[in-house]
């Protein structure tokens, strides 16, 4: 094993009881809309990032309120292929639990913003939403291009199908 000093993150991971940390307690404590620093780090492994509404940051203390915390959720789309039904479900989730907008990333994922902590578990688990095999990124997505060159076969070929089976077949990837 390497003798190098490990990044701070590694310590958090090791102590985290397989990436659980104090997430359960943190999620249950609704006196604050935020999670502890450590839990925030762990959450990144679940494709979720804590944020706060910068536009209104200034007045919050005066209102006797903490920052307006919320979470961004990234939803993996294997091979970048999504069905219209999935899109509509994500749209519904955006309206019901996020800020109503959907972003698409350069890594072919959906991104929802503004999910408050009390709704986090529900949204990550996709309870009540029918989206097939997609779920939040606990690891990076499997990317593919819609069209690619098949060098060997000298023509255009879609490799999306290959990636999907790749995604499904290998448990490490899913």
């Amino acid at each position, binding site marked *: 094993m390497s003798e190098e000093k490990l990044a701070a993150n590694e310590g958090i991971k090791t102590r985290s009881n397989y990436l659980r940390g104090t997430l359960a307690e943190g999620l249950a404590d*609704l006196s604050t*809309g935020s999670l502890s620093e450590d839990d925030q780090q762990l959450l990144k492994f679940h494709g979720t990032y804590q944020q706060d509404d910068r536009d209104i940051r200034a007045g919050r203390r005066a*209102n*006797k309120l*903490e920052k307006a915390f919320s979470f961004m959720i990234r939803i993996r789309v294997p091979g970048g292929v999504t069905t219209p039904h999935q899109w509509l479900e994500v749209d519904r989730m955006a309206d019901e639990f996020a800020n109503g907008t959907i972003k698409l990333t350069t890594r072919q994922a959906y991104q929802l913003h503004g999910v*408050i902590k*009390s709704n986090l578990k529900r949204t990550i688990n996709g309870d009540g939403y029918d989206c097939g095999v997609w779920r939040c990124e606990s690891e990076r997505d499997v990317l593919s291009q819609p069209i690619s060159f098949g060098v060997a076969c000298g023509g255009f070929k879609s490799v999306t199908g290959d990636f999907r089976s790749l995604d499904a077949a290998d448990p490490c990837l899913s």
Partner: protein
Amino acid sequence: MSLLPEQSPFRPDQKKSLESLLSSMDDGQRMWLGGFLSAGVGVQVSGASTVKVPLTVLYGTESGNSEALADRTVKAAKKRGFKPVMKNMSECVPADMEKVENLLVVVSTWGDGDPPESAEEFHQVLMSEKADLSGVNYSVCALGDTSYEQFCETGKQIDARLAELGGKRVVDRVDCDVDYDELYEGWVEKAFAALEPQGGGVGFVDQVVSNGPSVEYGKKNPFPSELLDKVLLNGERSAKETWHYELSLEGSGMNYEPGDALAVVAKNAPDMVEGILGAAKLVGSEEVELKGGHQKLLADALREDLEVTSLSRSVLKKLNEVVGNDRLTRLLSDEGKEELKDYLWGRWVVDAIGDFAPDGLEAGQLVGLLRKLPPRLYSIASSPLAHPDEVHLTVASVRYDGVGGARKGVASTYLADLVNKGDEVSVFTHLNKGFRLPESGDTPILMVGPGTGVAPFRAFVEHRAELGVSGDSWLFFGDQRYSYDFLYQLEWQDHLKSGALSRLDVAFSRDQPEKVYVQHKMLERSREVYDWLERGGYFYVCGDASRMAHDVHEALIQIVEKEGAVSREEAEGYVANLKKEKRYQRDVY
């Protein structure tokens, strides 16, 4: 400088004559007069009867007014030579009245013509069970609010029922509006005269009685309090407007305890005054005379003295006396009850004037329609220990669209729009004995206070923190949206950290597709809520009377049913018992 002390037993006119006479005498004359009087010649010395007349003053109070009047009655009765005893309807049963010779009843009416909560049981038994009150001389003073349909309903019912059960009504009932002093004084004077043995002669000395220990300032003389701070408690994207106000009580001599309320004497906004002047086709510079005899300019009277917004049956009745309108007559009739209800909804006096007096009114007529502007009560949101010489309020600004256009609450928007830091607001404290922290600091307390209902609980928690008590405390708070409507969030976080607050549960109704309210959170925690009650915990509810209080009450019964493994009736009995033991207290509006 008066010769006679405040407490001298003379009527105001007698006092005046006496003082003018005495000041005109020299020492020799006075000494002669003193001797003459003590010889008992030609003077009926009042109150010398050896047998004191017994008198029971029975009251049913919600926010403390009836109790305060009962107290005044007892004090005055003592001076008149009665042997008075004060009884709270919550502590006795109608059967107790059978042995009473002389009975004076002071009772208020709440909500939809209901008796005060503490008097509910007494009222229910009185109305349904027989009692023999044939030896009872009585009279009733009913308190109420003419802006409600069922004005003084409880007082009316009790008055009728006492007669039904054989009681002898010695003085007619009076039905008092929010401004009750005058009517009360007239009533109690008549009552004393009717019940005392010989013609008395000792007049009712009008003392400056104020609620609470205040000396100079009080209801009759509100304190000009400086607004120290005003802060919006909702975040920028909120749909609501709730303000935190900090007012100074320095120099007022007024004290309060957590659970008490502050009365704010507001002024009507300029647009309210203009609106009603416009509808009545008046200018505002007309001279008018108000009850009590002062002369004022109409616009000033409309701004400071009169209620120009709230439309009630009583206002419509007075309006009809002026205009004699068929539709109005029909609305006021028995057949028109439903239609009247519809008409009153969302309308102000200005709308009624527009509808029924399109040609306007005379200044005197307009003033005659309107009652005195009542002070508005707000549950105090601070502990005097945590904020000496200050009093804090949590007030939601009422703004809505009525039938005639944009409408708003008088006092809430007065504070929000017209009073700035440094300005003065007329206030006085209002005792609320029915809403108090438990005696012992070890007693666990459960507090359910969504929206502005959280106000007294801020006071409770601050108070306990200052006293350094160790008892557990649990707050259930709710509002619309977590990110913008979590009133006093930072303070609750601090209290949780310090231990002043042990537990906090929140319910935000608009953060998810289904509505989540405080009662749902209570039910989620039903086991622990029950445990706290079993440990002797006190359960407090503050806030909306119409739906929330009822839903929370229902949840409480369900919790007892489930966790106590008892029947519905037994659970209701358990909860009723909590009330009896004063462990279930409510401040709902």
